[in-house]
Protein backbone atom coordinates (compact mmCIF):
# COMPACT_ATOMS: atom_id res chain seq x y z
CA UNK A 1 0.00 0.00 0.00
CA UNK A 2 2.82 2.31 0.91
CA UNK A 3 4.65 1.54 -2.28
CA UNK A 4 1.53 2.29 -4.31
CA UNK A 5 1.17 5.60 -2.53
CA UNK A 6 4.83 6.43 -3.08
CA UNK A 7 4.48 5.55 -6.72
CA UNK A 8 1.41 7.73 -6.93
CA UNK A 9 3.14 10.66 -5.28
CA UNK A 10 5.96 10.40 -7.72
CA UNK A 11 4.20 9.56 -10.99
CA UNK A 12 0.54 10.35 -10.24
CA UNK A 13 0.43 13.78 -11.84
CA UNK A 14 2.26 12.76 -14.98
CA UNK A 15 0.10 9.65 -15.34
CA UNK A 16 -3.06 11.72 -15.01
CA UNK A 17 -1.78 14.29 -17.51
CA UNK A 18 -0.81 11.59 -20.00
CA UNK A 19 -4.21 9.99 -19.56
CA UNK A 20 -5.92 13.31 -20.16
CA UNK A 21 -3.84 13.97 -23.29
CA UNK A 22 -4.57 10.51 -24.68
CA UNK A 23 -8.26 10.93 -23.85
CA UNK A 24 -8.51 14.27 -25.62
CA UNK A 25 -6.65 12.93 -28.62
CA UNK A 26 -9.01 9.94 -28.73
CA UNK A 27 -12.05 12.20 -28.59
CA UNK A 28 -10.65 14.30 -31.43
CA UNK A 29 -10.02 11.18 -33.47
CA UNK A 30 -13.48 9.79 -32.80
CA UNK A 31 -15.02 13.03 -34.00
CA UNK A 32 -13.12 12.54 -37.27
CA UNK A 33 -10.86 15.47 -36.51
CA UNK A 34 -13.64 17.90 -37.31
CA UNK A 35 -12.40 20.23 -34.56
CA UNK A 36 -8.94 20.37 -36.12
CA UNK A 37 -10.17 20.85 -39.67
CA UNK A 38 -12.69 23.46 -38.53
CA UNK A 39 -10.03 25.45 -36.72
CA UNK A 40 -7.77 25.15 -39.76
CA UNK A 41 -10.56 26.56 -41.88
CA UNK A 42 -11.07 29.40 -39.40
CA UNK A 43 -7.40 30.36 -39.39
CA UNK A 44 -6.87 30.22 -43.13
CA UNK A 45 -10.08 32.14 -43.88
CA UNK A 46 -8.27 35.46 -44.49
CA UNK A 47 -5.98 33.82 -47.04
CA UNK A 48 -8.59 32.48 -49.44
CA UNK A 49 -8.40 33.81 -52.92
CA UNK A 50 -11.55 35.34 -54.22
CA UNK A 51 -13.04 33.47 -57.16
CA UNK A 52 -11.57 35.07 -60.25
CA UNK A 53 -14.06 34.01 -62.88
CA UNK A 54 -12.39 35.61 -65.86
CA UNK A 55 -8.94 34.22 -65.15
CA UNK A 56 -10.27 30.73 -64.63
CA UNK A 57 -8.42 28.36 -66.89
CA UNK A 58 -10.44 28.82 -70.07
CA UNK A 59 -8.44 26.27 -71.94
CA UNK A 60 -9.31 23.57 -69.44
CA UNK A 61 -12.96 24.50 -69.72
CA UNK A 62 -12.91 24.23 -73.51
CA UNK A 63 -11.31 20.82 -73.22
CA UNK A 64 -13.96 19.73 -70.77
CA UNK A 65 -16.71 20.76 -73.16
CA UNK A 66 -15.02 18.97 -76.05
CA UNK A 67 -14.74 15.81 -74.00
CA UNK A 68 -18.34 15.98 -72.92
CA UNK A 69 -19.37 16.42 -76.55
CA UNK A 70 -17.37 13.42 -77.80
CA UNK A 71 -18.69 11.30 -75.01
CA UNK A 72 -22.28 12.31 -75.59
CA UNK A 73 -22.04 11.68 -79.32
CA UNK A 74 -20.73 8.18 -78.79
CA UNK A 75 -23.16 7.43 -76.08
CA UNK A 76 -26.04 8.69 -78.18
CA UNK A 77 -25.20 6.25 -80.93
CA UNK A 78 -25.19 3.37 -78.50
CA UNK A 79 -28.34 4.41 -76.72
CA UNK A 80 -30.48 5.53 -79.60
CA UNK A 81 -32.42 2.29 -79.59
CA UNK A 82 -32.81 2.17 -75.87
CA UNK A 83 -36.14 3.40 -74.69
CA UNK A 84 -36.81 4.97 -71.37
CA UNK A 85 -33.30 6.32 -71.01
CA UNK A 86 -33.43 9.24 -68.69
CA UNK A 87 -30.51 11.52 -68.23
CA UNK A 88 -29.69 12.56 -64.72
CA UNK A 89 -30.76 16.09 -63.95
CA UNK A 90 -27.89 18.48 -63.74
CA UNK A 91 -27.82 20.16 -60.39
CA UNK A 92 -26.11 23.37 -59.46
CA UNK A 93 -22.67 22.94 -57.95
CA UNK A 94 -21.54 24.44 -54.67
CA UNK A 95 -18.41 26.54 -55.32
CA UNK A 96 -15.75 25.65 -52.76
CA UNK A 97 -12.26 27.10 -52.18
CA UNK A 98 -9.31 24.75 -51.77
CA UNK A 99 -7.83 25.61 -48.38
CA UNK A 100 -5.38 22.76 -47.83
CA UNK A 101 -3.88 19.50 -48.92
CA UNK A 102 -3.41 16.13 -47.27
CA UNK A 103 -2.00 16.15 -43.73
CA UNK A 104 0.03 13.10 -44.65
CA UNK A 105 2.04 11.97 -47.65
CA UNK A 106 0.37 8.63 -48.25
CA UNK A 107 -2.99 9.99 -49.27
CA UNK A 108 -3.93 12.57 -51.87
CA UNK A 109 -6.49 14.78 -50.26
CA UNK A 110 -7.88 18.26 -50.66
CA UNK A 111 -9.36 20.31 -47.84
CA UNK A 112 -12.27 22.42 -49.09
CA UNK A 113 -13.76 25.36 -47.23
CA UNK A 114 -17.39 24.27 -47.57
CA UNK A 115 -19.22 21.74 -45.43
CA UNK A 116 -22.57 20.48 -44.19
CA UNK A 117 -23.81 24.01 -43.60
CA UNK A 118 -23.45 24.70 -47.33
CA UNK A 119 -25.17 21.47 -48.33
CA UNK A 120 -22.14 19.25 -48.94
CA UNK A 121 -22.83 15.57 -48.31
CA UNK A 122 -20.58 12.57 -47.90
CA UNK A 123 -19.62 11.08 -51.30
CA UNK A 124 -20.47 14.29 -53.15
CA UNK A 125 -18.63 14.57 -56.45
CA UNK A 126 -16.02 17.31 -56.70
CA UNK A 127 -15.47 18.88 -60.13
CA UNK A 128 -13.22 21.62 -61.41
CA UNK A 129 -12.83 23.26 -64.80
CA UNK A 130 -11.49 20.29 -66.75
CA UNK A 131 -13.33 17.43 -65.14
CA UNK A 132 -13.65 15.25 -62.10
CA UNK A 133 -11.31 15.91 -59.19
CA UNK A 134 -12.47 13.50 -56.52
CA UNK A 135 -15.07 12.59 -53.95
CA UNK A 136 -15.92 13.96 -50.50
CA UNK A 137 -14.74 11.41 -47.95
CA UNK A 138 -15.23 13.37 -44.73
CA UNK A 139 -17.40 16.35 -44.01
CA UNK A 140 -17.98 18.62 -41.03
CA UNK A 141 -19.85 21.89 -40.59
CA UNK A 142 -17.61 24.15 -42.67
CA UNK A 143 -14.96 21.86 -44.10
CA UNK A 144 -14.87 18.81 -46.30
CA UNK A 145 -12.04 16.42 -47.08
CA UNK A 146 -11.80 15.22 -50.67
CA UNK A 147 -10.11 12.00 -51.79
CA UNK A 148 -8.57 12.84 -55.15
CA UNK A 149 -8.67 10.75 -58.32
CA UNK A 150 -4.88 10.65 -58.15
CA UNK A 151 -4.97 8.97 -54.73
CA UNK A 152 -3.24 5.61 -54.87
CA UNK A 153 -6.04 4.05 -52.78
CA UNK A 154 -8.78 5.28 -55.01
CA UNK A 155 -9.83 3.08 -57.91
CA UNK A 156 -12.47 4.45 -60.22
CA UNK A 157 -14.24 2.69 -63.08
CA UNK A 158 -13.71 4.57 -66.36
CA UNK A 159 -14.36 4.07 -70.03
CA UNK A 160 -12.72 5.28 -73.23
CA UNK A 161 -15.47 7.34 -74.83
CA UNK A 162 -14.54 6.56 -78.47
CA UNK A 163 -14.69 2.77 -78.19
CA UNK A 164 -16.40 2.25 -74.81
CA UNK A 165 -13.43 0.14 -73.70
CA UNK A 166 -13.74 -0.15 -69.94
CA UNK A 167 -11.26 -0.41 -67.12
CA UNK A 168 -10.32 1.39 -63.94
CA UNK A 169 -7.85 4.09 -63.01
CA UNK A 170 -5.56 4.12 -60.03
CA UNK A 171 -3.23 6.74 -58.65
CA UNK A 172 0.41 6.82 -59.59
CA UNK A 173 3.46 7.65 -57.55
CA UNK A 174 6.36 9.74 -58.71
CA UNK A 175 6.81 13.23 -60.08
CA UNK A 176 3.58 13.17 -62.05
CA UNK A 177 1.52 11.70 -59.21
CA UNK A 178 -0.84 14.67 -59.18
CA UNK A 179 -1.47 14.98 -62.90
CA UNK A 180 -1.39 11.47 -64.35
CA UNK A 181 -3.07 8.20 -63.42
CA UNK A 182 -2.78 4.63 -64.70
CA UNK A 183 -5.73 3.00 -66.44
CA UNK A 184 -5.96 -0.78 -66.40
CA UNK A 185 -8.30 -2.34 -68.94
CA UNK A 186 -10.54 -5.30 -68.24
CA UNK A 187 -10.09 -6.82 -71.71
CA UNK A 188 -6.95 -8.14 -73.33
CA UNK A 189 -7.65 -6.64 -76.75
CA UNK A 190 -8.75 -3.07 -76.50
CA UNK A 191 -9.01 -0.39 -79.11
CA UNK A 192 -7.39 2.63 -77.55
CA UNK A 193 -4.90 5.17 -78.80
CA UNK A 194 -3.19 8.34 -77.72
CA UNK A 195 -5.53 11.32 -77.42
CA UNK A 196 -8.67 9.33 -76.66
CA UNK A 197 -10.84 10.89 -74.00
CA UNK A 198 -11.63 8.96 -70.83
CA UNK A 199 -14.82 9.43 -68.82
CA UNK A 200 -16.26 7.80 -65.71
CA UNK A 201 -18.06 4.59 -66.63
CA UNK A 202 -21.53 3.46 -65.73
CA UNK A 203 -19.98 0.62 -63.71
CA UNK A 204 -18.55 3.11 -61.28
CA UNK A 205 -20.43 3.20 -58.02
CA UNK A 206 -18.42 6.17 -56.81
CA UNK A 207 -19.19 8.59 -59.62
CA UNK A 208 -22.07 9.22 -61.99
CA UNK A 209 -21.20 8.03 -65.49
CA UNK A 210 -19.97 10.24 -68.28
CA UNK A 211 -17.95 12.77 -66.29
CA UNK A 212 -14.74 13.82 -68.07
CA UNK A 213 -11.58 12.45 -66.47
CA UNK A 214 -8.70 12.90 -68.90
CA UNK A 215 -6.92 12.04 -72.12
CA UNK A 216 -4.88 8.95 -73.00
CA UNK A 217 -1.22 9.93 -72.95
CA UNK A 218 0.39 6.60 -73.80
CA UNK A 219 -0.66 2.96 -74.10
CA UNK A 220 1.26 -0.13 -73.07
CA UNK A 221 -0.43 -3.06 -74.83
CA UNK A 222 2.17 -5.61 -73.74
CA UNK A 223 1.50 -5.17 -70.07
CA UNK A 224 0.44 -8.34 -68.25
CA UNK A 225 -2.22 -9.31 -67.26
CA UNK A 226 -4.07 -6.55 -69.11
CA UNK A 227 -3.06 -3.51 -71.15
CA UNK A 228 -2.36 -0.28 -69.31
CA UNK A 229 -2.62 3.32 -70.38
CA UNK A 230 -1.31 6.50 -68.81
CA UNK A 231 -4.10 9.04 -68.48
CA UNK A 232 -3.40 12.76 -68.28
CA UNK A 233 -6.05 14.24 -65.99
CA UNK A 234 -7.67 17.30 -67.53
CA UNK A 235 -8.46 18.88 -64.19
CA UNK A 236 -5.37 20.77 -62.99
CA UNK A 237 -5.34 18.99 -59.63
CA UNK A 238 -1.93 20.31 -58.58
CA UNK A 239 -2.94 23.94 -59.09
CA UNK A 240 -6.55 23.95 -57.96
CA UNK A 241 -7.91 26.95 -56.13
CA UNK A 242 -11.65 26.63 -56.60
CA UNK A 243 -13.81 23.58 -57.16
CA UNK A 244 -17.50 22.81 -57.47
CA UNK A 245 -19.19 20.17 -55.31
CA UNK A 246 -22.16 18.20 -56.69
CA UNK A 247 -24.25 15.85 -54.55
CA UNK A 248 -23.66 12.25 -55.64
CA UNK A 249 -26.32 10.90 -57.96
CA UNK A 250 -26.72 7.14 -57.60
CA UNK A 251 -25.72 5.10 -60.65
CA UNK A 252 -28.62 4.24 -62.92
CA UNK A 253 -28.51 0.48 -62.78
CA UNK A 254 -32.13 0.05 -63.84
CA UNK A 255 -31.36 0.63 -67.50
CA UNK A 256 -28.40 -1.69 -67.64
CA UNK A 257 -29.34 -4.79 -65.68
CA UNK A 258 -31.96 -7.08 -67.22
CA UNK A 259 -35.12 -7.84 -65.30
CA UNK A 260 -34.57 -10.66 -62.86
CA UNK A 261 -36.41 -13.73 -64.17
CA UNK A 262 -37.87 -16.02 -61.53
CA UNK A 263 -36.67 -19.61 -62.04
CA UNK A 264 -38.36 -22.67 -60.57
CA UNK A 265 -40.67 -20.52 -58.60
CA UNK A 266 -37.80 -18.78 -56.86
CA UNK A 267 -37.88 -15.07 -56.65
CA UNK A 268 -34.47 -13.51 -57.08
CA UNK A 269 -33.63 -10.70 -54.72
CA UNK A 270 -33.63 -7.29 -56.38
CA UNK A 271 -30.29 -6.04 -57.69
CA UNK A 272 -28.27 -4.45 -54.96
CA UNK A 273 -28.08 -0.74 -55.00
CA UNK A 274 -24.53 0.52 -54.68
Amino acid at each position, binding site marked *: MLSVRRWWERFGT*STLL*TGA*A*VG*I*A*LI*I*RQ*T*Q*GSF*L*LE*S*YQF*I*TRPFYNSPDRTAQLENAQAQELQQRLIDLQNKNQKLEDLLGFTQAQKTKGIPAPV*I*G*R*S*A*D*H*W*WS*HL*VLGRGKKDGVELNSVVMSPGGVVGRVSKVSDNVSLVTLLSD*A*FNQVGVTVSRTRATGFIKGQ*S*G*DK*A*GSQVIMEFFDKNVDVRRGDTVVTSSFSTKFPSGLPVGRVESVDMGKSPSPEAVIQLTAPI*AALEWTAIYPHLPAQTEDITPDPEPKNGQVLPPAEKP
Partner: protein
Amino acid sequence: MQFPAMTQMVQTIDRSPALRLFFGSVLTVMSVWICLMLLPTRLPGMALAGIGPNWLLIWVVIWSLKRSVWQGLSAGLVLGLLQDAMTEEHPTHIFSLMVVAYLISRLQKQRVLREDFIFITLITFGMAVVAETVMALQFSFLGTRTVVDIWRHHQLIALSSAILSSLWAPVLYFPLNQLWKWSQSPDA
Protein backbone atom coordinates in the same frame (compact mmCIF):
# COMPACT_ATOMS: atom_id res chain seq x y z
CA MET B 1 0.97 52.33 -20.49
CA GLN B 2 0.43 48.67 -21.18
CA PHE B 3 4.06 47.77 -21.10
CA PRO B 4 4.75 48.11 -17.34
CA ALA B 5 1.76 45.91 -16.61
CA MET B 6 2.97 43.33 -19.06
CA THR B 7 6.49 43.38 -17.72
CA GLN B 8 5.15 42.89 -14.23
CA MET B 9 3.03 39.98 -15.40
CA VAL B 10 5.98 38.32 -17.11
CA GLN B 11 8.09 38.83 -13.97
CA THR B 12 5.39 37.30 -11.79
CA ILE B 13 5.19 34.25 -14.01
CA ASP B 14 8.95 34.04 -14.18
CA ARG B 15 9.29 34.03 -10.38
CA SER B 16 6.88 31.24 -9.64
CA PRO B 17 7.90 27.71 -10.75
CA ALA B 18 4.27 26.54 -10.70
CA LEU B 19 3.14 29.37 -12.98
CA ARG B 20 6.09 28.76 -15.29
CA LEU B 21 5.19 25.10 -15.52
CA PHE B 22 1.58 26.01 -16.23
CA PHE B 23 2.42 28.47 -18.99
CA GLY B 24 5.03 26.06 -20.34
CA SER B 25 2.36 23.36 -20.65
CA VAL B 26 -0.11 25.72 -22.28
CA LEU B 27 2.49 26.83 -24.82
CA THR B 28 3.49 23.20 -25.44
CA VAL B 29 -0.10 22.30 -26.28
CA MET B 30 -0.26 25.40 -28.48
CA SER B 31 2.86 24.28 -30.34
CA VAL B 32 1.25 20.90 -31.11
CA TRP B 33 -1.79 22.73 -32.37
CA ILE B 34 0.34 24.97 -34.59
CA CYS B 35 2.05 21.87 -36.02
CA LEU B 36 -1.37 20.35 -36.76
CA MET B 37 -2.46 23.53 -38.49
CA LEU B 38 0.70 23.51 -40.61
CA LEU B 39 0.13 19.95 -41.83
CA PRO B 40 -2.44 20.61 -44.60
CA THR B 41 -0.58 23.68 -45.90
CA ARG B 42 1.79 23.57 -48.84
CA LEU B 43 3.42 26.97 -48.59
CA PRO B 44 5.96 27.92 -51.26
CA GLY B 45 9.39 26.78 -50.13
CA MET B 46 7.87 24.28 -47.75
CA ALA B 47 6.90 21.68 -50.33
CA LEU B 48 8.89 19.29 -52.50
CA ALA B 49 6.99 17.33 -55.18
CA GLY B 50 3.75 18.17 -53.37
CA ILE B 51 5.08 16.85 -50.08
CA GLY B 52 5.51 19.05 -47.04
CA PRO B 53 7.50 18.61 -43.82
CA ASN B 54 6.11 16.16 -41.30
CA TRP B 55 5.63 18.66 -38.48
CA LEU B 56 4.31 16.15 -35.96
CA LEU B 57 7.34 13.93 -36.51
CA ILE B 58 9.66 16.89 -35.86
CA TRP B 59 7.72 17.66 -32.68
CA VAL B 60 7.97 14.09 -31.42
CA VAL B 61 11.71 14.01 -32.15
CA ILE B 62 12.29 17.21 -30.19
CA TRP B 63 10.03 16.12 -27.33
CA SER B 64 11.70 12.74 -26.95
CA LEU B 65 15.27 14.08 -26.99
CA LYS B 66 15.41 14.86 -23.30
CA ARG B 67 12.64 12.69 -21.94
CA SER B 68 12.10 9.19 -20.70
CA VAL B 69 10.91 6.35 -22.91
CA TRP B 70 7.41 6.45 -21.43
CA GLN B 71 7.01 10.18 -21.94
CA GLY B 72 8.19 9.75 -25.52
CA LEU B 73 5.79 6.89 -26.16
CA SER B 74 2.81 8.80 -24.76
CA ALA B 75 3.62 11.77 -26.98
CA GLY B 76 3.82 9.41 -29.97
CA LEU B 77 0.44 7.94 -29.06
CA VAL B 78 -1.27 11.32 -28.63
CA LEU B 79 0.15 12.89 -31.78
CA GLY B 80 -0.48 9.70 -33.76
CA LEU B 81 -4.16 9.82 -32.77
CA LEU B 82 -4.32 13.49 -33.77
CA GLN B 83 -2.75 12.86 -37.16
CA ASP B 84 -5.15 9.97 -37.72
CA ALA B 85 -7.97 12.42 -37.05
CA MET B 86 -6.64 14.72 -39.76
CA THR B 87 -6.29 11.97 -42.38
CA GLU B 88 -7.46 8.36 -42.39
CA GLU B 89 -7.40 5.89 -39.51
CA HIS B 90 -6.10 2.83 -41.35
CA PRO B 91 -3.18 2.42 -41.28
CA THR B 92 -2.57 4.42 -38.15
CA HIS B 93 0.17 6.97 -37.54
CA ILE B 94 0.45 5.90 -33.90
CA PHE B 95 3.01 3.20 -34.59
CA SER B 96 5.32 5.30 -36.73
CA LEU B 97 5.44 8.15 -34.20
CA MET B 98 5.80 5.78 -31.24
CA VAL B 99 8.68 3.94 -32.88
CA VAL B 100 10.41 7.26 -33.51
CA ALA B 101 9.81 8.40 -29.92
CA TYR B 102 11.14 5.11 -28.58
CA LEU B 103 14.29 5.20 -30.68
CA ILE B 104 15.06 8.80 -29.79
CA SER B 105 14.51 8.42 -26.08
CA ARG B 106 16.72 5.30 -26.04
CA LEU B 107 19.38 7.08 -28.01
CA GLN B 108 19.79 9.89 -25.49
CA LYS B 109 21.14 7.45 -22.92
CA GLN B 110 24.33 7.02 -24.86
CA ARG B 111 25.15 10.72 -24.74
CA VAL B 112 27.56 10.37 -27.58
CA LEU B 113 26.06 13.00 -29.79
CA ARG B 114 26.06 16.69 -29.14
CA GLU B 115 22.90 18.69 -29.33
CA ASP B 116 23.15 21.28 -32.00
CA PHE B 117 21.78 22.30 -35.32
CA ILE B 118 23.51 19.54 -37.26
CA PHE B 119 22.52 16.87 -34.78
CA ILE B 120 18.83 17.81 -34.86
CA THR B 121 18.87 17.93 -38.65
CA LEU B 122 20.54 14.55 -39.00
CA ILE B 123 18.42 12.78 -36.45
CA THR B 124 15.19 14.15 -37.94
CA PHE B 125 16.31 12.99 -41.38
CA GLY B 126 16.85 9.46 -40.11
CA MET B 127 13.63 9.38 -38.13
CA ALA B 128 11.52 10.62 -41.06
CA VAL B 129 12.80 7.66 -43.08
CA VAL B 130 12.03 5.31 -40.17
CA ALA B 131 8.50 6.72 -39.76
CA GLU B 132 7.64 6.41 -43.45
CA THR B 133 9.06 2.88 -43.49
CA VAL B 134 6.77 1.91 -40.60
CA MET B 135 3.86 3.34 -42.58
CA ALA B 136 4.92 1.43 -45.71
CA LEU B 137 5.14 -1.81 -43.71
CA GLN B 138 1.63 -1.25 -42.40
CA PHE B 139 0.37 -0.66 -45.93
CA SER B 140 2.06 -3.87 -47.04
CA PHE B 141 0.23 -5.83 -44.35
CA LEU B 142 -3.09 -4.16 -45.12
CA GLY B 143 -2.87 -5.34 -48.71
CA THR B 144 -4.96 -2.50 -50.15
CA ARG B 145 -2.18 -1.55 -52.57
CA THR B 146 0.34 -3.68 -54.41
CA VAL B 147 3.67 -4.07 -52.65
CA VAL B 148 5.60 -2.70 -55.65
CA ASP B 149 3.47 0.45 -55.66
CA ILE B 150 3.90 0.93 -51.95
CA TRP B 151 7.68 0.76 -51.97
CA ARG B 152 8.03 2.91 -55.06
CA HIS B 153 5.83 5.47 -53.37
CA HIS B 154 7.81 5.02 -50.16
CA GLN B 155 11.07 6.02 -51.85
CA LEU B 156 9.67 9.33 -52.99
CA ILE B 157 7.84 10.10 -49.75
CA ALA B 158 10.65 9.08 -47.44
CA LEU B 159 13.24 11.15 -49.27
CA SER B 160 11.16 14.30 -49.72
CA SER B 161 9.75 14.15 -46.22
CA ALA B 162 13.17 13.49 -44.69
CA ILE B 163 14.81 16.40 -46.52
CA LEU B 164 12.07 18.89 -45.68
CA SER B 165 11.50 17.74 -42.10
CA SER B 166 15.19 17.83 -41.30
CA LEU B 167 15.60 21.31 -42.73
CA TRP B 168 12.63 22.69 -40.82
CA ALA B 169 13.41 20.86 -37.58
CA PRO B 170 15.68 23.58 -36.10
CA VAL B 171 12.89 26.13 -36.59
CA LEU B 172 10.81 24.16 -34.12
CA TYR B 173 13.68 22.93 -31.97
CA PHE B 174 15.05 26.24 -30.72
CA PRO B 175 11.83 27.81 -29.42
CA LEU B 176 10.58 24.55 -27.90
CA ASN B 177 13.90 23.80 -26.27
CA GLN B 178 14.06 27.31 -24.77
CA LEU B 179 10.47 27.00 -23.59
CA TRP B 180 11.05 23.70 -21.83
CA LYS B 181 14.30 24.89 -20.29
CA TRP B 182 12.54 27.97 -18.95
CA SER B 183 9.43 26.22 -17.66
CA GLN B 184 11.22 23.31 -16.03
CA SER B 185 14.18 25.01 -14.38
CA PRO B 186 13.80 24.82 -10.59
CA ASP B 187 14.61 28.47 -9.84
CA ALA B 188 14.40 31.72 -11.70
